[in-house]
């Protein structure tokens, strides 16, 4: 088994979006997703659609790469569409057959929900494609700092993510080793039906968990030996700093948000 683990799906390229501060990107994506739920008419959706599309073009990532992200949720989208088409009952009936009644309102609702979902997925794909996991972690740590006052463990969350990222390849190697060892004793991992396969995972998962706990204990000791005591008196080597493009994009984001809200209120 060739171990080629890519975490997230970061697509390295040289674009304005890649260089943006992760905090700005995180906050913008978050705001965009909320605004998607604020917008509820054609103009709001058009504006969001145009914005996300121009951001996608700015990211210099091949479009088909971004749309790949939709594949994972295609089922949910179809499900939503079908349900809404058949179960939202309105005034203007398009056609009726036995107990099935499709109305214009139903079609509109499903289109609206589907486009909302598509844009939601596209926005988060752009975030993960343009931001490496490490930057994301830093962004989360710095971005959550103000929330520490209300008890959000910002540093701990970021440290957990860092360690998780660090140990994914190590644990993958371990899985490989254990599965080979079990195969050598006659374990079969890819025969039988789905229940057999699930059962076959037990002799793989139990040793994996045990070794993960041992590792965790040793790591904790090594971290303590290196004076780790949470974020008490801790400084960082790399400090995130806002640049001009970060301010510009924040202003744009605020403008976009106001526009969406205005459309909702006025129209």
């Amino acid at each position, binding site marked *: 088994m060739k171990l080629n683990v890519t975490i997230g799906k970061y697509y390295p390229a040289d674009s304005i979006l890649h260089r943006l501060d992760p905090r700005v990107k995180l906050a913008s994506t978050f705001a965009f997703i909320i605004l998607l739920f604020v917008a509820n008419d054609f103009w709001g959706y058009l504006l969001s659609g145009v914005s996300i599309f121009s951001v996608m073009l700015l990211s210099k990532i091949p479009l088909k790469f971004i749309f790949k992200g939709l594949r994972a949720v295609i089922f949910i989208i179809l499900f939503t569409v079908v349900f809404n088409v058949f179960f939202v009952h309105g005034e203007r009936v398009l056609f009726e057959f036995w107990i099935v009644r499709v109305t214009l309102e139903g079609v509109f609702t499903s289109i609206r929900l589907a486009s909302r979902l598509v844009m939601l997925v596209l926005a988060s794909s752009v975030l993960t494609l343009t931001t490496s996991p490490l930057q994301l972690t830093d962004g989360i740590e710095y971005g959550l700092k103000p929330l520490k006052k209300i008890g959000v463990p910002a540093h701990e969350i970021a440290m957990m993510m860092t360690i998780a990222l660090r140990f994914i390849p190590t644990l993958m190697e371990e899985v490989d080793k254990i599965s080979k060892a079990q195969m050598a004793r006659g374990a079969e991992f890819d025969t039988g039906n789905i229940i057999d396969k699930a059962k076959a995972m037990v002799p793989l998962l139990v040793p994996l968990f045990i070794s993960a706990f041992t590792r965790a204990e040793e790591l904790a000791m090594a971290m303590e030996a*290196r004076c780790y005591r949470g974020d008490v008196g801790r400084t960082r080597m790399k400090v995130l700093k806002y640049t001009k493009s970060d301010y510009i994009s924040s202003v744009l984001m605020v403008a976009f948000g106001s526009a969406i809200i205005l459309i909702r209120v006025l129209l």
Partner: protein
Amino acid sequence: MSIEMIKIILLYFAFCVTLIMVIFVEMVKTNNLVFKYSRYNAESDEKEYFSALKDVNLSINKGEFIAILGHNGSGKSTLAKHMNALLTPTEGVVYVKGLNTKDENNTWEIRHLAGMVFQNPDNQIVAAVVEEDVAFGVENLGVPSEEIRERVDDALKWVNMYDFSKNTPSLLSGGQKQRIAIAGILAMKPECIIFDEATAMLDPIGRKEVMQAVIRLNREEGITVIFITHHMDEAVLADRVVVMEDGEIVLDDVPKKIFCQVEKLKSLALDVPQVTELASLLIKKGINLPNDIITIDEMADYLCRLK
């Protein structure tokens, strides 16, 4: 004699004493150290108490390179963990540069003074990028950002891993990972580094890399090195060897005087360096050799003289 004179003499005396204390200060000192731990016994449904360390008295001077030998379960790792306050004594005291490890106010100062490199390179690397991992310890000390950058770069250059600073540690070899762990400690500027079987999981090339770094740490940087191992060839390089058995120190001397006791070491289930064993076998056969040969070079030298 005037009072002034006495004052000056007293002052001079005090100055000398301080100077001596500064120069010859003991890096680590243990007094009657005992460490007990309990383990639940399922059969008798009772807690059992074990002594991992029984009355250990050891003093390690500043700048020394000391190897601690012993087979599994002899208490050598437990002893090491007492030297940077990861464990605290059940009885007795441990001082690290005069600081008592039992006092919790000293804990962070002690861990700063005495860094530790562990056995499994995979389980002591925290970050997914080499330079971030080296920075981890320094970040914990609260050093300003620019200085962290400098220290990290210097430490990576020192262990010859600067070219890998942006790599992910999982793609490196064991020896390289251990060198990064050393860099991570070195960047914290400690006065003493404890290696807890740091070469046990490495291949011969990795071991050589790490050993070279360890020797340089001691000779070039003047850092006190406490090296726990069960490889005799590594212990030979130290200034002083301490042999542990069942939680007690049984031998404590320079390597030459330790390794010439072939029979004694064998009885402690320890090996002697191959050349030393060879020398003792040759002596038994009546060949005229000294019994304290511990390196291959020495052996070659003496064998050539026989002619």
